[in-house]
């Protein structure tokens, strides 16, 4: 099966059905290993046992950016090649990415309570993640604002790409703003070089969470393809009931063609 075949939604469904059990298995094994290794990891001399929160915080923070990257590539596919599967990929990724971003914020603030003494510190990294979270929510609002999936996909693709260009600028601005206002005494997240005893569990967890994202993403894409198929069939049904079948319908959906 070549990459071109994947472009066909029906072929994608077949591949997804075959891949999903294996992806799920790899995810479970990796996450189980990661959890075991994090439980075994020693306490940090500065952060104490709270360093264990980092083992979930860092993978989620990494995924929050990675998912936006995936959506940006999919958006290019939407705008340049007008590829319907790219729409599906971008739309399915957004809620998953938003969930990971939310987890990164939540675990970050739970880490901050013992370390900083407050749940929320206007720390540069947390603030950037918060802005990213707002952008995810805005993107999801845009997806919901229109019911024609093709038009919503193109609008969302423009916003995703603009976001991808702006995210480094926002990150830079927030870092700069933070150094302007931050008292030097506050301990920064992950400021010191990581010891190997922390790095290995962290890496395993990061790979595990990445596989979790891939698994969920493939499954969510499958749902989205089915949803569009339902939509186009319902339109066929409505047309059959109304009796007048106009030629060249407006439903340029993949599901109809699939």
């Amino acid at each position: 099966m070549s990459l071109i075949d994947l472009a066909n939604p029906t072929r994608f469904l077949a591949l997804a059905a075959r891949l999903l059990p294996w992806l799920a298995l790899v995810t479970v094994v990796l996450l189980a290993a990661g959890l075991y290794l994090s439980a075994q990891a020693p306490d940090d001399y500065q952060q104490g046992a709270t360093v264990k929160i980092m083992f979930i915080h860092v993978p989620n923070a990494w995924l929050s950016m990675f998912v936006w990257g995936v959506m940006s590539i999919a958006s290019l596919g939407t705008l340049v090649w007008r590829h319907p599967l790219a729409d599906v990929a971008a739309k399915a990724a957004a809620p998953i990415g938003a969930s990971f971003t939310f987890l990164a914020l939540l675990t970050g603030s739970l880490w901050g309570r013992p370390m900083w003494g407050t749940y929320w510190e206007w720390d540069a990294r947390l603030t950037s993640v918060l802005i990213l979270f707002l952008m995810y929510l805005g993107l999801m609002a845009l997806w919901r604002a229109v019911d024609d999936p093709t038009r919503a996909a193109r609008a969302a693709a423009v916003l995703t790409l603009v976001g991808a260009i702006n995210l480094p600028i926002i990150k830079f601005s927030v870092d700069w703003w933070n150094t302007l206002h931050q008292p030097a005494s506050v301990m920064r997240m992950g400021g010191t070089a990581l010891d190997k005893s922390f790095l290995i569990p962290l890496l395993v967890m990061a790979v595990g969470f990445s596989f979790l994202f891939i698994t969920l993403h493939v499954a969510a894409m499958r749902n989205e393809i089915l949803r569009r198929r339902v939509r186009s069939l319902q339109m066929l049904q409505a047309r059959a009931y109304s009796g007048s079948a106009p030629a060249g319908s407006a439903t340029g959906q993949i599901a109809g063609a699939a």
Partner: protein
Amino acid sequence: MDLGPYTSFIATSYLAAALVVVLLIGWIAIDYRIQKARLRALEESGISRRSGRAATDLQ
């Protein structure tokens, strides 16, 4: 395993992560069932795809 004075924060983090992941999985699984059920209902009402294949043909 002694987690020191901040056990509740660590436990909350792990539980929250587990909860969000379970919610995601549950949402995706339920969504899959709903879409399949709708396709089956459409199939039974006699609507066929333009390709002529069954609506519930996922392969």
